[in-house]
């Protein structure tokens, strides 16, 4: 990836220590370019989610610099591992939340919500409440809620980690189509945290491998046509990339083992 002088997001020697002394990030430098799909891969507790929180602006570094070249009113589409829906509100009301909070209403809001729900395949479930939905459908609502603001930046914190493989594959495909809009706008940027090598290789242009305590140990550019289609999963090249990334992850785990 060709790094321009001003990346969309950049972390430079970032350290994040929580009160009580727990070290989440030791020294992380990372650049993310506009339109890129980057996965953060690593064992539990290596600081992946902390990187995401820093990029979103929810958290700030203890030391080092974080720059975000975003429009002042831009809100990232943030998706958590659990769907984080309001259980008392219908699918429609959950989806329209970001718009309601900035005072939008009326017919345009209705149309945006309808479009977002159709895009994630939930056009018929607008009136259901979260309890009436499956885990995969709840995650679709979560994606629709992020999508409704047409975000230029997606931050995804293991969104499909709790789902079965079939649902996960389907949602991987949905996510790719959301990030690669077909209406002529440039692709959105996505930072995707995952445990899964396969998911990282399938979705990303670049996989960043992290290790404990909070550092980056490897970066693998997945040099394959993009965006991917489902057929890529069954090619020998996909398997080779997975082996390559898996190997990097293995070394990261060894490197990150308790001293």
């Amino acid at each position: 990836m060709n790094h321009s002088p001003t990346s969309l997001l950049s972390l430079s020697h970032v350290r994040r220590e929580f009160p009580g002394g727990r070290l989440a990030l030791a020294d992380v430098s990372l650049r993310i370019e506009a339109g890129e799909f980057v996965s953060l891969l690593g064992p539990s507790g290596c600081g992946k989610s902390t990187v995401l929180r820093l990029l979103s602006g929810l958290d700030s570094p203890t030391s080092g610099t974080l720059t975000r070249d975003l429009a002042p009113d831009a809100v990232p589409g943030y998706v958590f591992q659990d769907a984080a829906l309001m259980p008392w509100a219908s699918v429609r009301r959950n989806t329209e939340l970001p718009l309601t909070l900035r005072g939008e209403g009326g017919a345009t809001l209705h149309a945006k919500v309808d479009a977002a729900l159709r895009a994630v395949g939930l056009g018929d479930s607008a009136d259901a409440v979260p309890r009436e939905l499956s885990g995969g459908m709840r995650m679709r609502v979560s994606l629709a809620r992020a999508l409704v603001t047409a975000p230029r930046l997606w931050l995804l914190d293991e969104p499909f980690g709790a789902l079965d493989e079939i649902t996960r594959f389907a949602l991987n495909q949905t996510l790719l189509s959301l990030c690669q809009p077909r209406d002529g706008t440039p692709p959105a940027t996505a930072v995707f945290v995952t445990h899964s090598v396969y998911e990282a290789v399938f979705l990303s242009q670049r996989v960043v491998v992290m290790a404990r305590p909070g550092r980056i140990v490897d970066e693998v550019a997945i040099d394959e046509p993009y965006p991917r289609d489902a057929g890529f999963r069954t090619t020998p090249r996909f398997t080779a990339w997975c082996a390559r990334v898996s190997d990097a992850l293995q070394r990261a785990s060894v490197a990150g083992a308790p001293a």
Partner: protein
Amino acid sequence: MTRANAGAFTRAGVPTLSVIVFLAAWEIAVRALHIPAYLLPAPSLIAATLADNFASLMTSWWFTLRVTLAALALAIAGGVLIAALFALSRTAERALAPFAVVLQVTPIVAIAPLLMILTDSSLATVLACAWLVAFFPILANTLTGLRSADANLRDLFTLYRASRWQTLRHLLVPAALPSFMTGLRIAGGLTLIGEVGGEFVAGAAGRDTGLASRILEASFRTEIPKMFAALTLVALTGVAIYLATAALSRTLLARWHDSERTP
């Protein structure tokens, strides 16, 4: 019988049946063992006494009900407002929580005489007693509820730059509703207990008095069936308050909260 009908019978029929069996056993026992009415009146005698004194007992019942509901309304207002204050400010909680706890743990019958002296009004005393016992469960449960909002959703509200008011309205209040309803169900019953306790201590006589004063009067005159008649009304009022709060809880939460899930 379909499964749904069976469910309805289990919910409503079984409790009704058990009460009928209990009353029948009571009636039979009183008649068979010749228990005198001044020790234990039979249900039929209590019902007859209730009918004979209907007008005067209804006046007292109306007083008790009004004071109880007014105290409950004030407890909801006070409990919810202070819970919101505590949820927004830890300092306020640290400063005021000791008072809330002291008021809660001090037995109401011990505070009532003091209230009587301070307010010089039996109505104010009864109202204050009922309010005091109902206030704390509402405060404690509402506060727990306000703090129970999902952490990820809180982050999302921060990301979307929600104002404090928006966060309160769209996130904290609905998230607190199940706990608040638990508090309300407890407080509903307690308010009546506080009202009756307050009336006993205030010992009011005259027109503006409630069912507890009727019970006291009847006991002074050893009109035991009338005591039981007034007591029955108190108990029925308590049951009615419980059923009303339970129904409200079911209406508000049935669709989304597990506590009101019907299988």
